[in-house]
């Protein structure tokens, strides 16, 4: 036997590096960015929320910021607005999305593509552009498209964004009439994934169209619905651009959302500590609601 002396399997550090060094190198850049631009800021914001923040010397004030914001009427108003906005938009949007998807699904492939594309289109325009256009649509003078539409039916013009009664509703309306294209595409993809044999089996069992819908279609699309629900809530809790562009939170805080309040507190009043506290309340809410949705919905999602 001319084999050289035993060359034991290399151990620990050297072997780790030889086998996995590249892998660590491949994730290095995102991990570094993550540490600097996500992890550090989160920790820093948490500390800040317990401070009277000042660039030069911050003072530790315990829960004062949190106490302050819970006693702040504007904060509660912004919470109320955010919740109303979310509750009014997300479920309605999902229903609209679902109905549209269901109708599109009945069409031939060519028409499916056409409607998908058309209904998706506004989603590629920026929030700023969409806000500008809707600002003009809601315009209370003769420019406003919506009032001209009402005029057609002999109705009086409405000051959509200028009065607290209708301002928040206007933002909600704009959201309803926006693009549901992404959701439609997801729904259509999962509708296509429902095995045809299930419907055939149901036909053999003399199931009605409604039964087929409630027992097959809806349950099998639950993962998609859950996804749309969670992402929809997260996005609408953070609604900002339309508020900033169209109402600046007014009139009389009627459209001030939490995200807008945080922006104001931080970058108009430079109360960094208080704004951080507000942002953690928002984060807590978002995480709480997401977890509840997952718990509540996903128990019977698997199939």
């Amino acid at each position: 036997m001319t084999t050289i002396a035993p060359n034991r399997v290399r151990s620990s550090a050297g072997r780790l590096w030889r086998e996995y060094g590249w892998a660590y190198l491949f994730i290095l850049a995102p991990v570094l960015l993550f540490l600097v631009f996500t992890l550090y800021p989160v920790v820093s914001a948490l500390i800040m929320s317990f401070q009277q923040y000042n660039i030069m010397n911050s003072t530790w004030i315990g829960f004062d910021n949190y106490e302050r914001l819970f006693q702040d009427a504007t904060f509660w108003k912004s919470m109320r607005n955010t919740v109303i906005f979310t509750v009014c938009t997300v479920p309605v949007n999902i229903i609209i999305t679902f109905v549209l998807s269901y109708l599109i699904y009945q069409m031939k492939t060519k028409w499916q593509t056409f409607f998908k594309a058309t209904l998706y289109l506004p989603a590629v325009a920026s929030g700023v552009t969409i806000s500008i256009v809707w600002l003009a649509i809601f315009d209370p003078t003769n420019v406003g498209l919506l009032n001209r539409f009402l005029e057609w039916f002999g109705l009086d013009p409405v000051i959509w964004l200028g009065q607290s009664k209708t301002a928040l509703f206007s933002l909600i309306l704009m959201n309803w009439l926006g693009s549901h294209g992404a959701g439609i595409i997801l729904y259509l993809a999962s509708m296509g994934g429902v095995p045809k044999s299930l419907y055939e089996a149901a036909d053999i069992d003399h199931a009605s169209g409604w039964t087929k819908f409630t027992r097959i279609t809806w349950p099998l699309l639950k993962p998609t619905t859950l996804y749309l629900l969670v992402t929809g809530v997260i996005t609408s809790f953070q609604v900002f651009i339309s508020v900033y562009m169209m109402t600046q939170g007014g009139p009389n805080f009627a459209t001030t959302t939490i995200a807008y309040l945080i922006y104001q507190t931080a970058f108009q009043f430079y109360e960094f500590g208080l704004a951080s506290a507000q942002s953690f309340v928002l984060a807590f809410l978002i995480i709480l609601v997401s977890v509840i949705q997952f718990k509540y919905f996903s128990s019977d999602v698997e199939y």
Partner: protein
Amino acid sequence: MKTRSKTIFLLIAAACLIVWSIVTIIPLYWMLVGSVQDSAATASFRPSMLPEAFSFAPYERFFAKTAAWRWLLNSLFISSVLTITNVFFASLAGYAFAKLKFPGSNAIFWVLLSTMMIPAQVTLIPLYILIVNVFNLGDSYTAIILPTAITVGNIFLMKQYMSSLPTSLIHAARIDACSEFGIFWKVILPLAKPGLAVLAIFTFVASWNEFFWPFLITNSTEMRTIQVGLASFVFAESTDFGAIMAGASVGALPMLILFFSLQRYFLQGITIGAVKG
């Protein structure tokens, strides 16, 4: 009988879809039509639904009153850089997480992913202080680009996508004496092209449309992106309907054109990584 009621149902469905499509499209249509009517900037002007009094004057006014060319250039540059960094680094990391089972990969991945739940508002202030006061980068391209150069969401999508590629190809390449980076570059990337294209398109559109961070971090007119510049223009010029619509169109048209030319990627791409994965 059955086929007849089915036909009626289909007709009603089509009618509903057409009405809703019109409602969805009207704002964009109105924007485009409004941007090519010479409004003469009077308060009594009522923009028509049809392109009467066709004129490019609103565009001329918009470009004359603003630094829009510069803003467009800024947006193009920033979006391109963000697209390249995100596509390259997110696919590299996604590949590592999906295919190279290194110690700690799951833990690291879940730590990254779990922070996606934290809203941007939380990190905003420290991020602002970090970039402006610590790194002294305020009002620069670097400041706009760096925080979103590689997003966790994109890494997640690429991990999902890379998982579906056959592992045996990686093994074959390893036996074919390919270096680990070579495997990624010469074997994985060409295979992942459809996924990369989708990621590139969505990143480009999202970066182009991004408003808040560039708005926060830029001061000078020259550093604004088109979205930030557009917003500032609207606040300054609340009366010139034509110019405002022209501006809105300028902000959106590049993306609309991109959408029409790459429709397939947009419509199929959304399903990558979403739901179940």
